[in-house]
């Protein structure tokens, strides 16, 4: 590596090792992604969300659940004193609540992805790989879940499990996996008869090993794109459940629940309900932009 810069090493036409080839491929993908400025904005928003969630305690100037003086600090409009976004009916600093609420939002997104993606992958790859009646049964079940509008099914589940953010996460995850299963099945169908799968089978690999080691990795990229594109929807569903009083419970600073609480004062103290909505909007816009960008880079077929 004496005469080569790091960039040249990455973009080398003749990679000397597997690692170099992989890193080079990743670097090329990154170069394409970087040229899409909207996707970069999306990435920036998502990274900002993660940073804000990690450093919420440092960033937030006030306590998110304990308010100030009820006689003097209620309903302060934005930019009064050091209350950037004003205060609510319990004299709590809205900016601090939004900053702490980012943790809840991030938690919902991450947990739903962590629960729903493996279920979808497992159902989809199994269905596509085995075919026959396994495929029929699994896809029927998937279709039944797809037959409900997502929010309505999530509502019914939360009604059964009881309100609360944990149950909202479970309900959203239960309603999120079917599209991933469909996608994973379609991908599996295209690769299940390929030579390398047959080779693995002839070497005596078990079905579980083939599914896990050879089929699933190839389905991952398209499923991940789909999950990223869905994240905005997940955030909106969680906020909707919070708004209806079925998600996070007070005094948790969940953005949807904050809008519901501010609704009573909408006419006179508009900022109480407006500010958390802006936060939801920015974050789900970020995920949408990022998902679009990822799709353009990783799935050239969909580019138009």
């Amino acid at each position, binding site marked *: 590596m004496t005469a080569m810069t790091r960039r040249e090493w990455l973009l080398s036409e003749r990679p000397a090792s597997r690692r170099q080839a992989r890193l080079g491929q990743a670097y090329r993908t990154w170069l394409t992604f970087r040229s899409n400025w909207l996707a970069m904005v999306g990435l920036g928003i998502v990274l900002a969300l993660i940073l804000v969630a990690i450093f919420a305690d440092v960033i937030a100037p006030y306590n998110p659940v304990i308010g100030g003086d009820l006689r003097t600090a209620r309903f302060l409009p934005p930019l009064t004193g050091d209350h950037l976004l004003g205060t609510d009916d319990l004299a709590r600093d809205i900016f601090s609540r939004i900053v702490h609420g980012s943790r809840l939002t991030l938690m919902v997104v991450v947990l739903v992805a962590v629960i729903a993606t493996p279920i979808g992958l497992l159902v989809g790859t199994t269905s596509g790989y085995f075919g026959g009646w396994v495929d029929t049964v699994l896809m029927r079940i998937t279709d039944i879940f797809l037959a409900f509008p997502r929010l*309505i099914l999530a509502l019914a589940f939360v009604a*059964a499990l009881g309100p609360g953010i944990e149950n909202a996460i479970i309900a959203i995850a239960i309603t999120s996996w079917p599209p991933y299963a469909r996608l994973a099945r379609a991908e599996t169908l295209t690769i299940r008869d390929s030579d390398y799968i047959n080779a693995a089978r002839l070497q005596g690999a078990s079905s579980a090993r083939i599914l896990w080691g050879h089929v699933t990795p190839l389905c991952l990229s398209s499923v991940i794109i789909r999950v990223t594109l869905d994240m905005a929807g997940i955030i*909106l569903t969680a906020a*909707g459940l919070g*708004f209806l009083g079925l998600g996070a419970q007070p005094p948790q600073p969940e953005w*949807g629940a904050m*809008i519901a609480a501010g609704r009573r004062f909408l006419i006179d103290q508009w900022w109480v*309900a407006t500010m958390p909505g802006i936060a939801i*909007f920015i974050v789900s816009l970020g995920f949408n932009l990022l998902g679009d960008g990822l799709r353009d880079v990783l799935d050239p077929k969909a580019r138009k």
Partner: protein
Amino acid sequence: MSDTTTGGGRDSALLRVAWKAVKLVATVALTFLGLLVVTFLIGRVVPVDPVLAVVGDRASQSVYDRVYLELGLDKPLYEQFWIYLQKVMTGDFGQSFLTKRDIVDDIARVFPATLELATVAILIGTVIGIPMGVWAAVRQGRFADQAVRVLGLVGYSAPIFWLGLLGLLVFYARLQWVAGPGRIDIAYEYALTPKTGLLLLDSAMQGQWEVFRNVFSHIILPASLLGYFSMAYISRMTRSFMLNELAQEYVTTARVKGVPEWRIIWVHALRNAAVPLVTVVALSYANLLEGSVLTETVFAWPGLGQYLTNSLQNADMNAVLGGTLVIGSIFVGLNLLSDLLYSLLDPRVRRGR
């Protein structure tokens, strides 16, 4: 395709259609059964004791036991499901704990409000969305395309209930352009003889234009809001279908023949793009049901969505499951309808290709 012209081919084509119909019916029946299983199972895992919900918590043990038997809770699960199935098939979803009425009656009472809202919304979404999508496709990559894209992105990213609240704040409270929450002012509520339950239609048929104006000023804001969300989806899909069509060779042929550009776009290409668009419109009509749950809550719209959320907040499980089942069935029905329309409109699908 050539075999359809011969006698034997016609027979096999008929058979194919019949087989398709049987398969379709079986699929739909299975999906409905699945919907029922899901709602039934959800109903069983509720932590609310269904007996206590009926008798109240002051009832004696003997009353409790009697109701327990009456509700069939001592029977095995599959038998309970069988009873549930029979009841639902005869249109019996049980009684609402909240309104003390049959849930079927409750749903029939609130449904027209949702239907009216969704219909006005889909009209707005289609009438604006399709031309916007066409325009974006024609001007691909230019300013118009970007503007349509941004408008769509905002639609995908903004929480609908928040936009609704902002709309109320700006257009109702500040500018006073539209009427506030609800379907109609109380003063007009009894001026109409209810016929269809669709207030716009009722007032127009009875020639009560003052009432019509009032109803219109109530519906326009929530309907525009819902319409905006379906517009975002419809225009995006129109754009991609049109791009697909405009790249076809028949468009080049038409251009070479000297057909005016507007005719190529609006007659030749759009007509072919219209086939998949029917599916898109039907699907977004179904999606409006979902959006209506949150919108109706914001606008105090007395429809199915508000009924569902009210029942949810009062743990009225029968009503929740009944409403969920109805919405699920409509969803399945609209999906089926869009499939059928698709095969009816597209000659390639119609001939079994």
